[in-house]
């Protein structure tokens, strides 16, 4: 078995890394912005749906092409942290676009993406449900940013401190 992630996995990882980081920054900027609000929202919605599509492809790819094993010497709690944080990342990559789509549906907004292309509502029009999902979207976004920071820190530690091949398995 190879000690690196398959090529498709690496491409999906790095493309989504850029998209998700962009998304987090757009999201936090747009909820304060006045003059750029509309421009940012117009990117945020289709980008979120693109991420949802990509994470679905990525999950299927992961099940078909499993990642390489972690180094044999890695202690149990680090292995647990690695697995748990990855499943948390996957869960959030699904949850954030779905909650976003759901909250727009519950608010009675059209789910307009690009041009006249739009998606159907996935929840009934209910503003109390909207208020809950809107708050949940923020909480999950901060959780994703925190998980991303932990993930980046772990990746850099593997690369420069442990030097155990884990970073190389995904790099380049």
């Amino acid at each position, binding site marked *: 078995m190879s000690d690196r992630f398959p090529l498709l996995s690496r491409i999906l990882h790095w493309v989504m890394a850029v998209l998700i980081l962009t998304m987090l*920054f757009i999201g936090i900027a747009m909820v304060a912005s006045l003059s750029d*609000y509309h421009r940012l929202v117009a990117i945020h919605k289709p980008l979120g749906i693109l991420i949802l599509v990509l994470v679905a492809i990525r999950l299927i790819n992961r099940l078909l092409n499993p990642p390489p094993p972690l180094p044999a010497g890695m202690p149990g709690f680090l292995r647990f942290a690695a697995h748990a944080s990855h499943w948390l990342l996957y869960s959030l990559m699904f949850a954030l676009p779905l909650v976003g789509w759901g909250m727009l549906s519950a608010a009675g907004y059209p789910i307009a993406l690009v041009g006249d292309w739009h998606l159907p509502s996935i929840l009934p029009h209910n503003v109390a449900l909207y208020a809950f999902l*809107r708050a949940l979207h923020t909480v999950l976004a901060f959780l994703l940013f925190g998980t991303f920071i932990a993930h980046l820190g772990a990746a850099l530690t593997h690369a420069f401190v442990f030097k155990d*091949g884990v970073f190389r398995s995904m790099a380049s």
Partner: protein
Amino acid sequence: MYEDDPKDIPATRYSLSALLRPPSLLRLGLIGGALAAVVVCFAWAAGWLAPGRLDQARIINAFEAANRPQQPGFRRNHAKGVCLTGWFDSNGAAAGYSKAVVFQPGRVPVFGRLAMAGGMPRAPDNPKTVRSMALNFNLPNGEVWRTGMNDIPVFTVNTAQGFYDQQNANMPDPKTHKPDPLALKAFLAAHPEAVQATSIIKSHPFAADFANSTFNSLNAFRFLDTAGHVTPVRWAMVPEDQFVPEAAAPPKGANYLFDQLIARIDKGPARWHLIVTIGQPGDPTRDVTVQWRNDRKKIDAGTLTITTIASEATGNCRDINFDPLVLPAGIAPSDDPLLSLRSAAYAVSFTRRAGEPKMPSAVQLATGRAH
């Protein structure tokens, strides 16, 4: 960067003592610094590093501060209103300028809201309070067009900062419950566009009724045709009911304007024509305080028919954000900064009231009145 084969990594490499060796500590410190830099960038994007910056929340906070006690569940502005339903018959006349499906000949269902400016949902009707018409067009291809219009010919300020300055100048003093005249004077001195716009607004008498009021988009938009040509436009809903200026002594009754509207629709549908003004190159699209020249071409794009008025209730116009930037393909925002401001501020108002308990609105009908 050098890395060992993962199969040969000894467990001791992950031990605490290995991490506490000076070279490892230095590297961990650098990694921590890199992570901190990312977090600082995030905080910068969020605006947390510039706490004095004007943002969405401050605009809506100012509405709330001006309207004490708090009015949970209601819009932070244009709080008093009723719901309407009807339809729009497009005659196809605007289809040459915009590919939007709404301008193809045919009928689309419409719902909306007629309201009065101000953040107090039980404020007595006043003939000099700005009235608004908000509409939602459900297009046959699933797209939605929303527009919020006002019965004034221009708006008083043309930037977000100007709007916020105006909010603060009009802020009631906690003791006198009236705006501070000195603050108002200072605002007008700093915003000559507001002085000019106010004189234009004052030169247009208010109509006696909702049904004979003209409602203006105020902001400019862009129409895009199938070939990609862009036309700057403004639009207005112009009533078929004949204009009658407000009476010198308006009728009594806290809801007399809404009562008159309900009585008017009881007699039969009310109609407005969607009049699109075609801008010329050089017409100001980013200054909502300035009118376009009166000789600009105007197109009658179709007829709005309002057949039903209903009280605000769960699931109807009360629970909709009439964001003026919910636009179908073929209508796009102009460079007017107030459009993004409106979109952003409406979203905050909508999100806040969505999570609050609801109380009955001031204008109550037994049921929707329809013909």
